[in-house]
């Protein structure tokens, strides 16, 4: 017998309460004065007996209630023998086939060694015992059902193939717990693995069920390994000469070494560098320029390590070459400084020069086609020529973006063009008196303001006050004047900046730390075409194929070998697809957008450090079966126990005692009935 929460047994101390009430308290009552005790007899014994007899039952019931309550909270249980229907154990053989099992030692891969070990285990399982083979990768894959057929089991082991996934022992433990629950049999789990430290999780996640015996069969130990751990590269290239690629080379349990690092573009090395990787450390390599052609390009960073795990010596990434997006800057000739600042921020200061600016006068674009532009900037508008506002509205409705910059001339307008909110007045603050406005509140999570923050130190001396009715204020100055507004119109968006983008009435453009990212984020936000597919993924992550709106159009996923991965039904219904191996996938979403996705193995698999023995012992001790020795498979008929809660019975007992206490207490505490006494009246 045991208790799940034994600390609650301290509640038994509460029994002292009825003891005090029934036995101690009554002895300590203050004496009541009475004229004479000559007619009372000193019958202490009988009095105490009387009291005890009267109240002993009530006392027992109350004490029992408290004891039962404490026991109930302590959650008692007894171990009962599990019904031995078959007297057997279910032997589970889990073979690790994660990415690290590709490592070779002595001319044999770890996976091959593990499969041989698994065959040995299965050969020792008695013919009467059921067994099951699992493959442990990113997920746990059941290779067979529970079966007694040794041939099926051996064939399942043979069929296990190496994968690029990352092993997770918590997944194995969860599977084993579920299996123990459903099979109603004690489990004997044999884990054949390289026991990577990085695959371990918190003990609560990896604990085994109470009647599970975990036996580990280590294959391979910790060996030196170098890997390309990470690559930082742009996903879109607009100017090949302005590309910067940074690669991190890591060595796990490895001595200091020189490594040759090459940048491979579409299968051809284009750059090579040598790097000194410290012992158990990391080194970075930077490649400038990437002579990619238009369209998708398959890129890799490789090292020439001669270690046991060559699979992690390259890191694939995908790059798409595009033309810069055109920005239409509509200005009446007075915003030359604003154009200069914008050009500096978007073109000169940009790492990838994703945008190019084309300036036009309002009358020139009033009726012209705007199809070639990604976004438009309407700078300091005054009275617009006929047709321009309608043209811009059409432009925005079609899914493009528009930035309206309200300058000193805009105060005369009754409302903001296209955005349509009313312009009230202009707020001035004198420079000479150093009275200025600053941003007081903003939506930090908005893509336009992300990282820009409060713009500390930026002073606004003149702001056009717009009452946000149709639009939504993203940033507000300290006099409650909206500085940045947004409105969704059709498929597109309109942003309104209530102060000029030159430094005539503010000093925003000269605060490059805020101005440059702000302008770039505005351009990306308005000029982009929505969230793009991530093009660099880790194995077992998912590519998005469709959102909820596009159901009837087909999506497509081609694996690195060019094979179609989706069935016809999946192509029209699947929302996501997991990428399970390294290489370049070609993905076409349901909206028709095509992308090339580079997939690489989780680099935690590259660290071949082994779980310490102490940790392993603790893990094996989580199951009541404890750590097995070599594994018998014939530990059938072991005396396994399962905890059996006594709480329901205690609850019923407590209910009965409470009822009895109520009845008894009612009888005792009721005022005594007056008993007639025959007496003679005084004469």
């Amino acid at each position, binding site marked *: 017998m045991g208790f799940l929460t034994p600390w609650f047994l301290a509640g038994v101390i509460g029994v002292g309460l009825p003891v005090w009430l029934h036995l101690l308290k009554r002895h300590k009552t*203050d004496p*009541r004065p*009475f004229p*004479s005790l000559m007619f*009372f007899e000193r019958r202490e014994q009988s009095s105490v007996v009387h009291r005890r007899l009267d109240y002993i039952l009530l006392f027992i019931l109350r004490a029992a209630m408290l004891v039962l309550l404490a026991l109930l909270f302590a959650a008692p249980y007894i171990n009962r023998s599990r019904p031995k229907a078959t007297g057997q154990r279910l032997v589970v053989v889990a073979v690790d086939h994660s990415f690290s099992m590709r490592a070779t030692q002595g001319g044999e891969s770890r996976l091959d060694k593990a499969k041989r070990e698994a065959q040995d285990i299965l050969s020792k399982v008695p013919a009467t015992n059921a067994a099951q083979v699992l493959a442990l990768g990113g997920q746990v894959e059941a290779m067979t059902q529970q079966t007694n057929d040794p041939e099926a089991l051996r064939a399942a082991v043979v069929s296990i193939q190496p994968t690029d996934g990352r092993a997770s022992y918590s997944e194995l433990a969860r599977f084993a717990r579920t299996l123990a629950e459903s099979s109603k049999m004690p489990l004997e789990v044999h884990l054949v693995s390289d026991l990577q430290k990085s695959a371990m999780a918190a003990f609560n996640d990896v604990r085994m069920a109470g009647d599970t015996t975990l036996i580990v069969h280590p294959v391979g130990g910790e060996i030196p390994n170098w890997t390309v751990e990470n690559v930082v590269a742009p996903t879109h290239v607009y100017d090949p000469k302005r590309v910067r690629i940074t690669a991190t080379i890591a060595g796990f349990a490895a001595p200091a070494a020189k490594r040759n690092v090459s940048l491979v573009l579409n299968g051809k090395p284009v750059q090579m560098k040598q790097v000194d990787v410290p012992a158990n450390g990391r080194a970075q390599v930077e490649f400038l320029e990437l002579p990619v052609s238009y369209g998708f390009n398959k890129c890799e960073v490789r090292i020439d390590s001669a270690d046991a795990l060559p699979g992690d010596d390259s890191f694939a990434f995908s790059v798409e070459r595009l033309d810069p997006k055109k920005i239409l800057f509509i200005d009446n000739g007075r915003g030359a400084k604003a154009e200069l600042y914008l050009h500096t921020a978007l073109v000169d200061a940009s790492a990838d020069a994703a945008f190019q600016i084309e300036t036009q006068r309002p009358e020139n674009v009033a009726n012209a086609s705007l199809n070639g532009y990604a976004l438009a900037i309407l700078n300091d508008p005054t009275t617009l020529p006929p047709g321009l506002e309608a043209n811009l509205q059409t432009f925005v409705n079609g899914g493009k973006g528009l930035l309206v910059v309200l300058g000193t001339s805009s105060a005369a307008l009754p409302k903001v063009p296209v955005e349509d909110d009313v312009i009230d007045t202009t707020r001035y603050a004198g420079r000479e008196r150093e009275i200025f406005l600053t941003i007081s509140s903003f939506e930090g999570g908005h893509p336009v303001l992300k990282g820009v923050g409060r713009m500390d130190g930026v002073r606004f001396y003149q702001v056009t006050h717009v009452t946000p009715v149709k639009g939504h204020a993203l940033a507000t100055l300290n006099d409650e004047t909206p500085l940045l507004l947004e409105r969704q119109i059709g498929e597109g968006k309109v942003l309104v900046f209530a102060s000029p983008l030159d430094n005539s009435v503010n000093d925003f453009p000269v605060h490059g730390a805020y101005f440059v990212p702000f302008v770039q984020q505005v351009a990306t936000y308005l000029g982009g075409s929505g969230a793009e597919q991530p093009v660099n993924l880790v194995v077992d992550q998912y590519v998005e194929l469709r959102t909820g709106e596009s159901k009837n159009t087909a999506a497509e996923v081609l694996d690195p070998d060019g094979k179609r991965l989706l069935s016809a039904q999946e192509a029209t219904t699947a929302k996501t697809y997991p990428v399970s191996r390294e290489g370049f996938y070609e993905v076409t979403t349901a909206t028709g957008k095509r992308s090339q996705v580079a997939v690489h193995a989780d680099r935690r698999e590259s660290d071949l450090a082994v779980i310490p023995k102490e940790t392993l012992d603790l893990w094996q001790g989580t199951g009541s079966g404890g750590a097995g020795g070599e594994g018998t498979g014939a530990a059938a008929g072991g005396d396994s126990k399962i905890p059996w809660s006594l709480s329901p019975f205690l609850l019923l007992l407590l209910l009965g005692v409470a009822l009895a206490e109520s009845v008894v207490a009612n009888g005792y505490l009721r005022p005594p009935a007056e008993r007639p*006494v025959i*007496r*003679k009246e*005084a004469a």
Partner: protein
Amino acid sequence: MLQRFLDPGVLASLASLDLVAKTVVDGFISGLHRSPDFGFSQEFAEYRSYNPGDDLRHVDWNVFARSERMYLKRYRGETNCQVNVLLDTSGSMKYGSKGLEKLEYAKFLCASILYLAHLQRDAAGLVVFDDEVRNFVAPSTKQGQLHRLLHAVEQAQPGKRTDITRPFAHLMDFLRRRGMVAVISDFWEAPERVIEAVQPLRFRGNEVVLFHLLDPEEIKPKLRHPVMLEDLESGETMEVTPDYAAKEYRQKMQAHMDDIEARTKGAGMDYFLVDTSRPLDGALREYLALRTGRL
């Protein structure tokens, strides 16, 4: 008239004991008692045959002239009587279950009797005692005697007592003339000891009335739980159960009262049980009716 029905608890709130006594006794002036002495006053009582040695001055010579027989002429006494009130102030008199202590009630009763005696021109006296004689006001009809008596009553404080015989032995020294003696006490003693202590007064020719003053809780105690009781006189404590108090104690108490009454009457004395829950005027009315019936 309404004051006749006032509860003793209400009277206790009145400050002046003198007023209280007047208020309570007023209206009973017709209840004059007679002196037990047969003297030679104006009221004829009876003739008695002459015996050698009788005083010849009391012979009715007119009867002798007509019948040649000698008879003595006797007259009934009137107010030439001592009324002594013996007030018990023992510790047990301190008890009171409803706010009014027995001693307070006893003081009202005592003051009323003394006032009544004073109105009758009797020589009223007072003895306050517990285990000793604590105060003594000699019987007198002098002016200011009533005030002296009431003052003594007011000054009476509860004391101790474990033995009633000791103070009564001393009382004999103070009460030399025959008269009426009213003893006000709760008589928490064995009946034989009470009678033994009081009986000498009767032997000396006194008219003795025992006012047995008891609280209703003393007669019928009501307990809900076992309680620890403390004797007000001895300080002794004892645990008592409701069951015992409801049955055995009541039987014993009733037997005790019956025994005292029987022994008192057997000794030629009057016994009068006073329940302190009753209005005082009712008790006095009963007392006077009792005396009138006897005399």
